[in-house]
């Protein structure tokens, strides 16, 4: 099966500019996650969708970050305006999970290669 697709792989922008990342999950995966991975740290969940609804966005800086998954398939993460501290790899992942984990392995995540953002 095709994996999780992300683009662009690399992006360099200046602070206060905007940027958008795109993710296409594995076909049929109901849940989509965006993680932020700052150099030297573990991935931090920004937002989690189940189909086209938001399950968790408690750690998303909503004054500058936004994300959507309009048709319950692919998703876009936007940053506007960007700050220096937004420099990170943005990882998209998907899983078959559709709620409380009843099926073994349902919350196993499949990750894309990531989008590396450098803010100057």
């Amino acid at each position, binding site marked *: 099966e095709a994996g999780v697709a992300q683009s662009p792989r690399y992006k360099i922008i200046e602070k206060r500019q905007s940027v958008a990342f795109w993710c296409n999950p594995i076909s049929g995966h109901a849940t989509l996650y965006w993680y932020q991975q700052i150099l030297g740290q*573990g991935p931090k969940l920004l937002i989690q969708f189940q189909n086209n609804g938001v399950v968790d966005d408690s750690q998303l800086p909503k004054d500058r970050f936004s994300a959507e998954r309009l048709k319950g398939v692919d998703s876009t993460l936007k940053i506007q305006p960007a700050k220096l501290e937004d420099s990170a790899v943005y990882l998209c992942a998907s899983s078959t999970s559709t709620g409380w984990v009843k099926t073994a392995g349902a919350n196993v995540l499949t*990750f894309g290669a990531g989008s590396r953002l450098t803010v100057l």
Partner: protein
Amino acid sequence: AQSVTQLDSQVPVFEEAPVELRCNYSSSVSVYLFWYVQYPNQGLQLLLKYLSGSTLVKGINGFEAEFNKSQTSFHLRKPSVHISDTAEYFCAYSGGYQKVTFGTGTKLQVIP
């Protein structure tokens, strides 16, 4: 809040030596534990998972981990490492609902 703690940020080990990467988790009613590996400039990929059943879990590339409920640990082990195992390893935890929380990672450096 659920959490995982990876006690070592870096672990250097000689090639063909054994290695253990440590992970502790916060207790919860339902526990699902994972180890992911991240090679340079790549996304994370699943190494192994504990969902239920046997506490000794075997994964890809010769890695295994043991779920210890009394010590709330899920340490990763390999009896003999190779150069190709050089990567960053992340322990992850899910408490039963969909949210998956990652540790800060352990960089394994295999020395020839």
